[in-house]
């Protein structure tokens, strides 16, 4: 239960920060309220109160808006190609890369998880050699394809993580309701030891166990978008190094 509890606490805090910022922690440049002055001249602009809540982390604003995002990593729904590509704009290439079946095949192999980076490098070397004077244009199409495919995969995983988080939340609500109900109805030893009482308790134990296990695997699930982004970046770097 802890991670979700933490998440909602963090979300609340972020909301609180938004409100507090407006009232307490944002003295404007023109703020002329005098500092607590002694004989010594202090700063013109005073420090805000020390118990001001913490700043939102980068990307946390998105988290506050989206309670279905359970990961520590900030939620970035889609990647932008400029984060891994300094070549010409890709708008046309993203539309046209699928028209060449050789390019489509290579993209498929490059983005596949079973293809190691060393294999990807040799595939790109062979492709660059064979592309002749169209090398730059064709490599640009390859990157457009790699970027689009990995970005799609990544978006699907992010949607999956959100579904996972919603299920976890529903499960956590059920555990809470059940434990409240059991506590209210099983007040003596006799009701606790009754067949229904035992059954209820067992069901609750199972739900709790499933919830805990899913929470533990969340750490790994949340790494998947990061891994795909790294893959896109690495392939982009390899493709660009073959452009010159």
């Amino acid at each position, binding site marked *: 239960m802890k991670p979700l509890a933490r998440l909602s606490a963090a979300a609340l805090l972020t909301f609180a920060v938004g409100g507090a910022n407006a009232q307490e922690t*944002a003295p404007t440049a023109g703020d002329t309220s005098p500092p607590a002055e002694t004989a010594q001249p202090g700063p013109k602009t005073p420090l805000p109160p020390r118990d001001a809540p913490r700043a939102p982390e980068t990307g946390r604003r998105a988290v506050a808006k989206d309670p279905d995002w359970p990961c520590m990593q900030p939620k970035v729904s889609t990647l932008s190609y400029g984060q891994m590509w300094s070549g010409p704009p890709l708008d046309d290439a993203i539309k046209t890369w699928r028209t060449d079946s050789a390019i489509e095949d290579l993209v498929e192999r490059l983005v596949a998880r079973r293809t190691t980076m060393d294999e990807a490098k040799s595939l790109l070397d062979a492709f660059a050699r064979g592309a002749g004077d169209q090398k730059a244009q064709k490599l640009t199409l390859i990157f457009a394809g790699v970027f689009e495919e990995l970005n799609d995969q990544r978006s699907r995983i992010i949607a999956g993580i959100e579904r996972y988080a919603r299920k976890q939340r529903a499960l956590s609500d059920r555990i809470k309701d059940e434990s409240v109900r059991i506590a209210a109805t099983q007040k003596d030893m006799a009701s606790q030891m009754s067949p229904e009482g035992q059954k209820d308790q067992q069901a609750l134990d199972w739900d709790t166990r499933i919830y805990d296990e899913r929470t533990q695997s969340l750490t790994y699930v949340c790494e998947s978008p990061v891994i795909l982004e790294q893959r896109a970046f690495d392939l982009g770097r390899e493709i660009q190094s073959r452009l010159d």
Partner: protein
Amino acid sequence: MKSPISRRAVPALAKAAAVFAGLAALIAAPAPAWAAKVFVTNERDHTMTVLDSESLKTLQTVKTGRRPRGLTASPDGKLIYVCASDDNRVEVYDANDYKLLRTLPSGPDPELFVLHPSGNPLYIANEDDALVTIVDTETGKVVGEIPVGVEPEGMGISPDGKTLVNTSETTSMAHFIDTTTKQIVENVLVDSRPRVAQFTPDAKFTWVSAEVGGTVSVIDNASHEVVKKITFQIPGVNDEAIQPVGIRITKDGNTAFVALGPANRVAIVDTHTYEIKKYLLVGQRVWQMAFSPDESVLYTTNGNSNDISVIDVASQKVTKSVTVGRGPWGVVAVP
């Protein structure tokens, strides 16, 4: 291919004895006498990578305290200071044999610090306590604490050591502190989540990056006014990915480099016109940067691609990326 440093050094020697200099350069080739060492802290590995600046090969991987982040060197380049954030201490290493010499108290969760230009004291930002802790590097004693805004992080110091600037992430302020009186002189409001403060070499301005705000504020040190707010736009990159953190300015005061976090770019800025001349693609989530001792090269730490990028300052090009440990954070280069 000779490096810019050896190109510069060889003509100097040639004046004295051309033939001898030529021989010396040849003999020195496998291990050049001018090679620098580059230290990189790896936040997720709890290590520090030491690289040779010429070969860019790892000389050693040093085990540090937990979660090493901020990193700096003594003015003579003999000592390396590391913020071991999760061990709540600063570690001092010998730059020659990489041995841990001693630890300094730091207050809780030290992230970044700055050394007085004379090498003493060390000013440390304590994120959890809203304090700047002052530590005497000789005696290892805490000699002062300055209350600042909430979540202090960035630390800059004027070339004469008289003014310290600390940024606080929650308060979104740059605090100008008189190092003699240890009092805040003025608090300057900047954009959201300021991460780094950097003085210009002429000490007239302080540049402050705002990670969430996406800007760099240039503050006039005399009037404490923000005289310019630099914004960044990169074709093909979402605005939210542009998160300025590290700032470095060349000694001639003409060129600034700004690391833009998950945009994976370093912006090159003309410090006089504030015009952005170039956006270099480096590695993933670029945060901190450091010049080589001769300033021919700038190193960037790329936290998510687990490498550093090497930027040739003169040609403004990325020449290489070198894999280090996981989560590279701080970087410093010494002769």
